């Protein structure tokens, strides 16, 4: 059976809008954020995301796991970017060195070193802000959209019946997958399996994950077959479909959509004018002696 996300009706900004309006706004927000690399512009988007987060009525306890996992992931990759400078090469042509750290030892004649430049530093900070804003806005969706409305929301956004329902199922498939994973993990632990103790080379390690990966995958496949049968047996897809729930826009929804579109148009205009590109504060450059 498909599990749903931990949605609860709450008094919050996000839930006071029609889900379609929110998805449109979310799309505009996403596209707009991706147009910028300038930390000053990105701060605006981050602020927006934080406002939505703090008015969402979701308690820290409820999203702690998700936030820590995704937050940790983003921090880790931003740090990696900081170390390597990868991905930023297209944005800046020259680097101003703040400091160069050299290891006091050699490995096979190679001396590990780390070049800290103003550009690398700013790039990783900008990336952190960008990805974090998007992540926050995305995490909020499953907590705030009523699962009973998934299908009709996508239908209302203009997707065909079948695809809208498929999207509905897909949204619910993710938490279901999580539940199956936990059950499998439990079943294997009861057979003395310990994930923490997996050792050996990469290939051996991957092979030792089979007790988890195989049942979860098979379950997902068998589960989808059941769902297809259940849908077929109740005449799904024979023609146009009625959606029992009817969504109606309120004035505030039009306002939100308008705001979203305006945000996107302005963002596109800015980026066409060349504003909002990668920015390194003058102070930092001065520090580098430029």
């Amino acid at each position, binding site marked *: 059976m498909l599990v749903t996300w931990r949605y609860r009706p709450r008094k919050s900004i996000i839930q006071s809008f029609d889900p379609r309006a929110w998805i449109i706004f979310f799309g505009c927000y996403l596209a707009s954020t991706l147009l910028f690399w300038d930390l000053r512009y990105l701060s605006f988007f981050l602020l927006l995301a934080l406002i939505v987060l703090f008015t969402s009525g979701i308690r820290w306890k409820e999203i702690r796991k998700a936030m820590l996992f995704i937050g940790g992931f983003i921090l880790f990759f931003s740090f990696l970017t900081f170390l390597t400078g990868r991905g930023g090469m297209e944005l800046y042509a020259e680097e101003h060195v703040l400091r160069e750290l050299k290891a006091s030892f050699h490995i096979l004649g190679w001396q590990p070193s780390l070049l800290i430049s103003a550009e690398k530093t700013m790039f990783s900070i900008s990336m952190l802000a960008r990805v974090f804003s998007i992540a926050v806005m995305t995490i909020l969706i499953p907590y705030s959209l009523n699962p009973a409305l998934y299908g009709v929301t996508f239908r209302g956004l203009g997707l065909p019946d079948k695809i809208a329902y498929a999207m509905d199922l897909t949204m619910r498939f993710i938490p279901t997958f999580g539940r199956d994973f936990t059950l499998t993990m*439990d079943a294997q*632990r009861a057979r003395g399996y310990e994930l923490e103790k997996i050792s050996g080379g990469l290939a051996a390690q991957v092979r030792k994950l089979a007790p988890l990966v195989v*049942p979860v995958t*098979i379950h997902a496949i068998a589960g989808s077959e059941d*769902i297809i049968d*259940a849908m077929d*047996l109740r*005449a799904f897809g*024979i023609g146009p479909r009625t959606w029992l729930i009817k969504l109606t826009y309120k004035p505030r929804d039009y306002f939100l959509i308008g705001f979203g579109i305006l945000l996107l148009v302005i963002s596109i205009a800015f980026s066409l004018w060349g504003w909002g590109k990668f920015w390194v504060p003058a102070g930092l450059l001065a520090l580098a002696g430029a």
Partner: protein
Amino acid sequence: MTDSSLRIENLSFRYRSRADLALRSISFEAAAGQVLLIAGASGCGKTTLIRCINGLIPNSYKGEIQGGIWVQGKPIQGLSLARISQMVGTVLQDPERQILGTRVINEVAFGLENLHLSREEILSRVDEALTRLNILHLKDRETFHLSGGEKQKVAIAGVLAMRPLVLLLDEPLASLDPASAQETLQMVRRLADDGMTVLMVEHRVEDVLNIHPETAMFLDEGEIRYYGPTAGLYRAVDYHRIKLPAPLILERAVKDPVPEPLTRQLEAAKAGIPNQTLVRFEGVRFGYEENQTVLAGINLEIRRGDIIAVLGPNGAGKTTLVKHAIGLLKPKAGRVLVDGRDTHQISVAEVAHTLGYVFQSPSHMLFAETVRAELAFGPTNLKHPPEEIEKDVREAIRIVHLEGFEENPPLALSFGQQKRVSIAAILAMRSRILVMDEPTAGQDYKNYMEFMDAILKLPGFEAVLFITHDIDLAVIYANRVILVNHGQVVRDGTPEEVLKDLAYLEENRLVPTSLLKTNLELYAHTRSFQRAEDLAHLGVLQNRSDRYQNSTLQ
């Protein structure tokens, strides 16, 4: 013949991937207002028959089909699934696998939405279906949070709302507690009385007999072995293979040789300190969410020599309770000691050396390429010596009757066989305590009786505990019964002590079976609960079997 709502003539079917026929020349009819019970062991072709009638064959499952199916005189061959689904409604075995909607109202409306009816029409039909099944109060609930019995009713409502002429039920009782099963059955009877044609495939023949199906069929190897009035079914089937009401078994078993006696004493328990505590629950409280109580202060000891049956309604907390015994869940308050060690302090893998736990669903654990490798996985993790593993694996395969399947991939086996592999996988670990969550679900009667026998005869177990909805398993195998409800142990004692209070059982959603009643009636002579086959050979009974037969069949 014309008034039959369902008529099947000479139906044969072979799946494209198989060499042999799944169904052979099946012919029968079912009339409006009647219940047809279809009994048979797993693999007998029941599910294939259902798929032929509801159109999944040949629309979703390909193969060669011969013969014809008519619903109200109209052939259904060549019709789309959607057309068939408006005439034939299907309720699958597990409501979990059928329910698509997140809320009850969405679930019941799903088929109607697909038929593109108007919103008003849909709403009125949803209300009608829910009212008919007495579950209108569930309308706005989330399907995920319903109990097993409620889910089954909602699944039936979703089919009923499409107003089918024929209702197919594929083992609808499999996941329900006895009271929910009875409620579902009563509901099905009412639907038939209102004019629907009902085909019910079910292992639990005894339960279905309570709603007096007009006709019955016994399928075996894809062929009809019996088809006629229900009373005739008893003579047509082997009571070792299909579970019949106890008085009927008594009557038949008298003529058979005396069965091998059952043991309710564990071999390993005879040595060592008697009644030594192996697992101890001290004031265990638990909830999955904050402010939720699933276990409300459990105090319990599992002692050497115990064969415990844990009974209780759906959602009582039985699985949550036993998951604490292996440390998969840790108490929010109180503690659980396994062999004197607190589960807070040891890993699940460490507990697994002492306590083997068989999960409810085999599909969550099977992964290996062969049955043999699957069985060796646990003991290898526990670092048993290879030669011992080989011996234990062989022994486990023998106990669950999977000889000849050693090199087959477990995932390609039938559900019943997979379940047995999952039990064998734990048996091969040679733990001292065995815990099983619904070991008999989805199993044939003969199969599960045999492996329960074999497990209890194994020399290694100091205590065995199983969760079950089948009171008869408690009657036959347990030497201690624990009744769980509302997160508490409400009764704990010998089967005779706990099960004699029929009114209390019913309060806890357990329905006394004919075997229990017969045993209680004869208790003065037997002084212990026994199988029907054993009771048949008590001298005191020989001249009374007629009376039993009459009293139960009325």
